[in-house]
């Protein structure tokens, strides 16, 4: 393609990317290095139905002047990045000095919101992503070998977990796993422990969230792999069969290598999605046991006093996290691309 043609061809999507991807990034970055001005406080008398009381309030006139002179706020550089709610530089250094074993150090770290979220997020990403791919592949292979009259119906039902809104899906499961719910009671009966509760224990909550993550994302992997299976080279499969390859060997040596580019694609999307895990934590009311970056952002914006700079900082850190996570996959894709040239 000529450069000129390419330019005009690319311009609309380039503009859209600038508008919807680059500008928001710049805006988030800006907000993360500015904080609100110092609040000028004063003590006043407040009265209401329950009597009068001396209380502190913000001197609006004094604060308005500061705001007008510098509407972006106060430039603080990396201060928010390093504070306790985020990378917690001082706290980490202190934990390193005061602990004498690696495990004690990590126990201290897990008290800090960012690292606590990081540990759950990474466990979630690295269990859900591979298991989703395996589950999706298995469903796709199973559905593909069904009689064609059955296929449509089975495909519809296997897609249901993805069609159900995440919030609703997790809420339904949340009620079912309640210690008085269907699954919760069944588990108590099977384990013979009438006090067993999935919601009261951290490891069990994590397992629940991971199972939910796989349940929700497997249909996506299934659809992609199922489409891939329709392009299988039949002659290769037949020759493998003639050579006496078992079904397992055919899957391992013919089907999976054929689907490899799709595996990379699904892995890419899933790594990104799972790193931003959010809905199940809300749906399962799991805040006490598991936090993620998206949940921290939500929590900052959810309180009675919103923490915009803090939420922006966590957003930037999330973007960086996704970038780091995707680098190996992207490098691989790039090498494949160069190899083909």
């Amino acid at each position, binding site marked *: 393609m000529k450069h000129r043609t390419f330019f005009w061809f690319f311009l609309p999507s380039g503009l859209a990317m600038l508008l919807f991807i680059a500008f928001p990034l710049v805006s988030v970055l800006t907000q993360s290095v500015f904080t609100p001005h110092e609040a000028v406080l004063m003590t006043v008398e407040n009265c209401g139905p329950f009597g009068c009381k001396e209380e*502190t309030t913000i001197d609006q006139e004094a604060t308005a002047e500061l705001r007008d002179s510098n509407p972006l706020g106060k430039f603080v550089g990396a201060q928010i990045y390093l504070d306790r709610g985020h990378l917690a530089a001082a706290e980490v250094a202190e934990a390193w000095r005061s602990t004498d074993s690696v495990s004690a150090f990590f126990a201290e770290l897990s008290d800090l919101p960012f690292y606590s979220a990081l540990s759950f997020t990474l466990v979630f990403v690295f269990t859900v992503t591979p298991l989703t791919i395996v589950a999706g592949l298995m469903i796709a292979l199973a559905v593909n070998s069904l009689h064609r009259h059955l296929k449509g119906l089975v495909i519809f039902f296997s897609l249901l977990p993805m069609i159900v809104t995440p919030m609703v899906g997790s809420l339904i499961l949340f009620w079912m796993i309640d210690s008085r719910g269907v699954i919760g009671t069944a588990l108590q009966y099977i384990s013979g422990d009438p006090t067993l509760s999935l919601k009261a224990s951290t490891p069990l909550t994590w397992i629940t969230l991971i199972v939910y993550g796989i349940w929700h994302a497997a249909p996506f992997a299934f659809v992609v792999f199922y489409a891939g299976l329709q392009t299988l080279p039949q002659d290769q499969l037949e020759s493998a069969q003639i050579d006496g390859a078992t079904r397992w060997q055919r899957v391992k040596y013919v089907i999976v290598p054929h689907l490899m580019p799709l595996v990379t694609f699904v892995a890419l999307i899933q790594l990104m999605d799972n790193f931003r895990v959010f809905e199940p934590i809300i749906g399962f009311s799991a805040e006490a046991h598991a936090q993620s970056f998206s949940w921290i952002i939500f929590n900052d914006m959810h309180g*009675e006093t919103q*923490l915009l700079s803090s939420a922006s900082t966590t957003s930037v850190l999330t973007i960086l996290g996704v970038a780091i996570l995707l680098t190996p996959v992207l490098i691989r894709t790039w090498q494949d691309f160069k190899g083909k040239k």
Partner: protein
Amino acid sequence: MMFKRIALAGSFLAFAASAGAACEIGARVNIVGNEFPAIHTVANGAKACTGAEVKANLTAEHQKINLAGMIGNPAEYTSAIVANSSIVALMNEDVIRPLDDLVAKHGQNLQKNQLITINGEVMAVAFMANAQHLVFRADVLNEIGVEVPTSYEELLAAAQMIREKGIMENPVGGAYKAGWNLAQEFNNMYLGHGGEFFKAGTAEVSINNEAGVATLEMMKALSEYMNPDFLTHDSNATNAEFRAGNVALMNMWGSRAATLADAEGVVQGVKDHMGVAGPMTVGGGSDAASTLWWDGWTVAKNISDEEAEATFIALANGIHPDMLNEETSLEAVWLIEGYEPTEAAVGVFAAAQMGTEPYPMLPFMGLLHSALGAELSDFMQGKESAAEALAGAEAAYTAAAKEKGFLN
């Protein structure tokens, strides 16, 4: 349930027709607020006004949209219905206006104690009071032969007897869901222990002390008698446990007490024997382990004076003394002239009489509330000590307060 809704809607319409005749406004009104029956009643009263459009967006998510909808100029919402905790966020950003001139002009039906004055200026008009207090099962207490508890220590003793007698496995209920609810229970218990949240006159937090540790230990002791899932139970889930007959003693919002036994599937024992009493004390102190709340309405700053006047007239109509009838009287502890307390209001009235502390209207209280909500759940699960949890909450608050410019 459906029939009840229709009946309720019908009664609103009837009331709207009776009260709306005298209300005439000349500019648009748009209200944002929380979603529960009492607020619906007020908003419907405002909608009865004629002459211009009155819109209301009532949702449990109101706190996430009210500031965004009022900070622009002109503001989308001309009024936000708030409580003593949530008015602070609007005050901090300076988006609500003083109402003194409007009170003088159109406030003839308002009582003096309805006016929320900050630094001498009326910033909101309160219409109802609320507090958390004891809700109990009289039949269960009879069975074990104890009086209605007036302190948390008595409540613990009663809970132990109920469990030992095999009446209920987890007789205590509490909205201990990690986050806002858990932090609120801490606030209640901390005030009951005579604690102060901040060093006087500053934004410096001071909760890592004897009162704080005693507070957490009492909360832990109570949680031993709760459903093991307590960290996922908000007020709704706690009410459901009570309605199902699994809970005999709980600290619950007054605004929910009236309708507690009034839902589908409520166990007969709950319907017949539910009782309401004042808030409890703790640790031998005389302070109630609870907080007092008001709900009221504000008028936006970034709107025209005509819109502000219309908003005031419409909302004053929403809380006109004529609105009180058998049905609406049950919905809340109204601060409106002519309100006669119902049986469900006993708890909130007792709270007011005990001199319960109002929830602090401090610009930085919301930050401490969020910090407590996030940091205390590790202690409740036994993962860290009380002092560690309190130190964590203090550190989380300090980081947030620095960001917001309350601390250097």
